[in-house]
Each structure stands twice: as structure tokens, then as C-alpha cells.
């Protein structure tokens, strides 16, 4: 059952595999899954490992279990309203409600979401009368009118409720299987399982309970929220860094923290060895690793082409500095480095490259610039300076905000990237730069 789930979920960029299925099965055996809403929650706990995956997960879930496709930028309610699944459900709903009331589309969608996200916890708390969302909230009226929809949702009644708590595992499996089968034949347009034991708690012949309120509708509300918020979708790792993905870039930078070893007296070892020698204690030394990070930033802040990036880059590294509290030095240059760089933004205080390379060889150097200039600007002095820098600082990389696909059009980029390893200034580019930096370090250590 659900064999296709990992594959289909992976299409959404989710990390689903055999273990997901095993955990899902275990959850079912333990009675954690009794409704579709439970299925959503359990799978979420197992599959989602990052808030960024909530969006894709919700989409995958609606696609796989409900055959509702949510396009990019779609609102959940629009996607639902469009779907065959919803149309079938509505027919069924109207039939069983015997229509003594007119329902607007919004109301219907709310009811649909209620049923989809109804969990056995909801049912349980209704049955045991412990619904914490049940208390009347006199302050809700003060809210904006646009929130009214949600408030109504929390106040709505579900008149009858099927009791799933005595549903046996076998019955459940059977129903789930049916869903899966429907899923396979979805191109034949068959979503008629809705109402006949699919998502609807009414479809199953449980005990009808009158006048019980289902409150919260937490799941449906949350699903809407998740789909409307960029925060719950992965950032584009291949777009040039900007305010939105600067945190992802920061995360990629974290890989550069390294450990340096220093020596320390190893007490346990000293004692052990001493005892073996019959009480003659000779200090044993061990290497203790310590986190350490030294960074030199060389930023091209000349010319309009770099303007949009300078601020974000400085923010990025400033964040890095406050986050890790390490050694960070920033210098500036215009287009390319000749014999000097500058320690201030306006480029008045010069620092000679020859002085720069006197620094500890463990510094990591990030050159940030578009490396685009008139060919004559990139002269011998400049190239020599870059060679000096890369020779001294083995861990030097160039981050280029110019999209990688244009690199080969620019002569100076082609030249410079042979001298300094060049990466695009994107979260992924930074990640790769850091990875390659670290590799260089380890190979250097073996010498």
C-alpha cells in the first residue's frame, strides 16, 4: 500500500523513502492514523524536516491523496474549487445535507477542508467534551472583517460525527487501499470514492452524533497559511543572493567553520598509562580541536554594475560575523586589484597587496566582484597580484554575481577564473565554494 508514495513525494523535492513507508505503517498499527487529517499530520511529522518543506509537502499531499493539483501561486481554495474531487464531494455533501440551507462556495470549501483535516484528536476531544477551542470567544468580533471567514470556521457546527475510534485497522487499510487504487486510475476521472468511505466521516457508518461542534479546523487553516507564505517553500538556491535568500547563503557559509588542533594534557590517558607502569606518571598529550575562522573579504565596490550587491554581501558577512564571532577583514577595490586594496568603502585608505599577503596563511579569501572590465584594465600587475594572493592564501575563491551562463562572453572573466576559482554568487555557489575550499585545506594538510 502506498508504494508509489515515496516516488510521488520525491517529485515535490521531499525526502520520502522506504523508511517513510515503514514509519507510516507503524503509525497505523499503533492507531495513529484513522482519518485523512491524521494521515496529513503523521506524514508531516515524518517527511517534513524543515519549515521550508511545509509548502511542497502540503502540495504533494493534496496531489497524492486528494488528486488536487496546486499550481505555483495558486490559492488552496482556488485549487480545491477547480478540482473534480471537490465537485464530487459537493454533490455528495448536498445530498446528505438535504439542503435546507444555501451554501456559498467559501462555506463549502471550508466544510471540505474541515473534513479533509479532521483528525482523530478532534473527534476524540469532541467525544470527551474536552475541546479547548470550544469556548466562546467574545473578542473575535473586534477583528478585521477579512478574518471573519476563519472565525466562522471555528464556530461552525458539524452536526453529525462519525466515530472512528472503533474502526479496525483492517477496515482502515481497506479504505486506504481504495484511495490508492483511485489514485492510480485518476486519469479516468474517478474520484467517486469521496463520500463512499473516502475522506468523508459521514460516508462511514459510524455513530451519528447530533449537535457536536468541531472547532479549530487547525489543519485546514494551517494548510492555507502554509501555501500563502513564501517562508514555507524552499528558497531558490541558484538565484543571485538577495534579501530573501541571504539566510540560505549564510547557511552555506557555515560550512567554513573549521577546527584547529592544539595540545592539551590528557588526564585519563596519563592515569591509565601511569597505572600500567605501576605508578610512574608521564604526561600524555592529546590534540584538542578548536573552532577557528579567519576571513578576508575583497569586494569590488566600484562601478554601477556592483552596486546592487555590495549591500547584501556586507549584510551577509556581517551576519556571519555576529553569528560566529570570528576574525573578518573587509577590503575594497575598483574593478580589479592592482598593487593595493582599500580598507574603507570610499577607497581612500590604501593597503598594499604585499602587506596583505603577510597575514596568516590560514585566512580564507573571498573575492567578490563581477570581474567584468575593459580588457586593458586587467594588466600584468593585476594578474600578478591575484597570483600572489592565491599563492599565499590557498583558500581563495571568487564569487561572481554575474549569471554563470554569461561568463564565457566576458574576456576578463575568462582570464580571472583561471587564476582564481570562480563561483556564482548564489547560495549554492557559496556552498560549493566552501566545499572546495575545505577540500583544498585537507589536501594541504597532508603535505
Amino acid at each position, binding site marked *: 500500500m502506498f508504494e508509489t508514495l515515496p516516488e510521488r513525494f520525491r517529485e515535490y523535492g521531499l*525526502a520520502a523513502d522506504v*523508511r517513510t513507508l515503514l*514509519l507510516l505503517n*507503524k*503509525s497505523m498499527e*499503533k*492507531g*495513529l492514523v484513522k482519518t485523512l487529517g491524521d494521515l496529513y*499530520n*503523521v506524514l508531516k*511529522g*515524518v517527511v*517534513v*524536516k*524543515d*519549515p521550508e518543506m*511545509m509548502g511542497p509537502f502540503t502540495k504533494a499531499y493534496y496531489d497524492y491523496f486528494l488528486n488536487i493539483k496546486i499550481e505555483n501561486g495558486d490559492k488552496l481554495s482556488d485549487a480545491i474549487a477547480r478540482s473534480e474531487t471537490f465537485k464530487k464531494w459537493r454533490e455528495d455533501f448536498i445530498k446528505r445535507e438535504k439542503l435546507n440551507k444555501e451554501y456559498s462556495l467559501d462555506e463549502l470549501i471550508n466544510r471540505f477542508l474541515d473534513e479533509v483535516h479532521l*483528525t482523530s*484528536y478532534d473527534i*476524540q*476531544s469532541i467525544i470527551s467534551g*474536552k475541546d*479547548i*477551542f470550544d469556548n466562546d*470567544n467574545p*473578542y*473575535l468580533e*473586534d*477583528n478585521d472583517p477579512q478574518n471573519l471567514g476563519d472565525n466562522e470556521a471555528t464556530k461552525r457546527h458539524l452536526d453529525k460525527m462519525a466515530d472512528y475510534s472503533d474502526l479496525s485497522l483492517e477496515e482502515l487499510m481497506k479504505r486506504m487501499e481504495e484511495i490508492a487504487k483511485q489514485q492510480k486510475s485518476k486519469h479516468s476521472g474517478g474520484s467517486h470514492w469521496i463520500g463512499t468511505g473516502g475522506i468523508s466521516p459521514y460516508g462511514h457508518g459510524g455513530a451519528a452524533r447530533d449537535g457536536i461542534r468541531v472547532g*479549530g479546523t*487547525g489543519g485546514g487553516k*494551517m494548510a492555507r*497559511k502554509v501555501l500563502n507564505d513564501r517562508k514555507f517553500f524552499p528558497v531558490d538556491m541558484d538565484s543571485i543572493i538577495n534579501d530573501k535568500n541571504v539566510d540560505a547563503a549564510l*547557511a552555506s557559509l*557555515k560550512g567554513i567553520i573549521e577546527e584547529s588542533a592544539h595540545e592539551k594534557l590528557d*588526564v*585519563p590517558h596519563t*592515569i*591509565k598509562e*601511569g*597505572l600500567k607502569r605501576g*605508578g610512574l606518571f608521564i604526561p600524555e598529550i592529546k590534540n584538542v580541536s578548536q*573552532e577557528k575562522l579567519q576571513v578576508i573579504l575583497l569586494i569590488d565596490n566600484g562601478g554601477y554594475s556592483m552596486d546592487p550587491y555590495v549591500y547584501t554581501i556586507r549584510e551577509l558577512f556581517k551576519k556571519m560575523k555576529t*553569528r560566529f564571532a570570528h576574525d573578518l577583514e573587509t577590503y575594497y577595490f575598483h574593478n580589479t586589484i592592482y598593487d593595493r586594496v582599500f580598507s574603507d568603502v570610499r577607497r581612500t585608505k590604501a593597503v598594499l597587496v604585499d602587506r596583505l599577503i603577510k597575514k596568516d596563511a590560514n585566512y580564507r579569501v573571498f573575492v567578490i566582484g563581477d570581474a567584468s572590465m575593459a580588457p586593458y584594465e586587467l594588466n600584468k600587475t593585476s594578474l600578478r597580484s591575484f597570483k600572489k594572493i592565491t599563492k599565499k592564501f590557498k583558500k581563495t575563491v571568487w564569487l561572481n554575481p554575474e549569471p554563470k551562463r554569461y561568463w564565457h562572453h566576458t574576456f576578463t572573466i575568462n582570464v580571472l577564473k583561471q587564476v582564481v576559482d570562480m563561483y556564482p554568487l548564489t547560495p549554492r555557489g557559496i556552498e560549493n565554494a566552501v566545499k572546495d575550499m575545505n577540500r583544498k585545506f585537507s589536501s594541504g594538510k597532508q603535505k
Partner: protein
Amino acid sequence: MADKTFWLGSDKYLCDRELAQAFHMSRVLGMPLLIEGEPGTGKTELPLQYAKDLNLELFVFPVGSKSNVEQFVARFDHVKYLRDSQIEILNAQREEKGLNTKLTTGNRNPENLSDYVIKGPAAQSFLSPNSVLLIDEIDKAPREFPNDLLYALSHRKFVLPESGEVIEISENEMPAIVITSNREQELPTAFKGRCIYHYIHFPEADIMREIITKHYPKIDNKIVDVAMDVFYHLRNVGLERAPTTREILNWLKYVKQFAQKEAIEKIENLEGIGALVKTQTDLEKIQKHILRDPQDFKRRSTPN
């Protein structure tokens, strides 16, 4: 049999429903619950309040940048071991010389290595069935720490150092393990895979009100209205460090001692704003914001 019933919070602690479900699920499956979310959303409170409410034994491991698995599980006290073994030699020598007084090892026997094993919170909680184990702020740990936990987490088993003693617990009696993280560092995928994951959303106004009344049952509703308006407005300004639940509770603690009218005035004048805003740049930003459009701010922070 461990407590596997659904727990929705106590009279002091409102457990978000989604969180409650994730917590229940983790206990039923015998897996640790990994909670991430903004600071001040009550991540740490969950296990503390749960243990308190149900009267369960609680073990806490606050993670720091130097934490290691030895501190978490158990370590061997080499110094004591050395002292005791020296004492034995010393006592033997004394006896030879006909001295009667003996130095004591405090009932520890150097032959018995387990006497020198000092158990950390993990070992202790695995020895007391159905306890609660909190691993707080795991993102502060050195990178290898979470990976070092993997074995124990998936096998429910620790091997103690030197003595080789094995501590094992059944899935049924497994402690409820809660791990919190502020996402300062990405946790290894393999580690996350062993946990049930839950991301705490920032509470919306209706939930926030419930949280506030749980803490200050007698508070004036009007005051809460005004304060919450300012609070959510501040959160939307785009501050470096947006105020959280903890901060609004502290702020209300300050203003609630005044009479309604006075308290509302204080809130509108952003008195004691230091309780909400924690960085200089943020303070400046708010001041600028108010200067630019004081009417807007006033309007938004005044109840209709």
C-alpha cells in the same frame, strides 16, 4: 506502560494543538520529538510542563558549544579511579608497616569499574522508565554531537564507558524525548530522520490571548487588546529581532500593575518598550517609523 494518552497542556501551559499531536505521535512511536521555531514560542516549556503536569521524572541536558556525548550519556571519573587505586597501594604499605589506620575509598572498589561511571541525563532517564528527557538547544552543540546520538536514539541503548555496562530500555518504557533547536545550525539529515519533526508557528492573536490569560488570569481585557495590537504591529515592521511571546508577557507584567487607563496610556506611549525590543537598531527603526507616521502608529495601536 508509558503514558501514551493525548496531552493538551495544563492550566499554566497552552499546548498548541498541532504540537500536541506531534508530541503524542512521537511518544506512541517511541521516537524523539524535534521542535524548531522562533525563540520564545515555548519549545522548552513543553517537556517541562508535561513532566510537571503528569508528575514524571524529568532530565534536562542543556546543550552548549562544548557539549559532548560523554556528558550526555556517561563519563568515567579517571581522577577518582586513580586516587582509589593509589589508596589501595598506600593501605597495603601501611599494613606492612603495622599501621592500623586506613584511608577510605568511600565504598568504591577500583576492581569494580562501574563505581567510577558518572551517569549523565541520558543514562539516568533510560534507567527510569517513562521519564521525560529534554535536550535543549541542540543547534548549539558541536557538529558531531547529533550524529553521535544516532546510535542510541535508534537502538534505545547506551554502552557505558570502561565498565561496558549496557543500558537498554523497551519501546514501551522509552522516555519522552524532546529536542529543541533554534536553527542556528543545520542538523544532519540522518539525525532529523530519526526524529518526529515539528515546527512551531508563531501563535496567532486568538491563541496569544489564551496564552496571556493563562499567565495573568486577572488581567484587564482592554489592556490586552491594546498591547496585542502594538505587539503584532511591531512584529510586522520587520525588525531584526521580532518580539516573541516571552516579551509580550514580560511587558504585560510591567503594565498590568497600573489601572486600566494609565496602563493603556503607557502602552500607547510605548513605555517599557525595552521589554519588547532588544537591539539598538530596532529601537531606532521604531522611532523612525513613529516619526514618519505617528498617526498611523497611534491609530493602529488604539482600539476602535
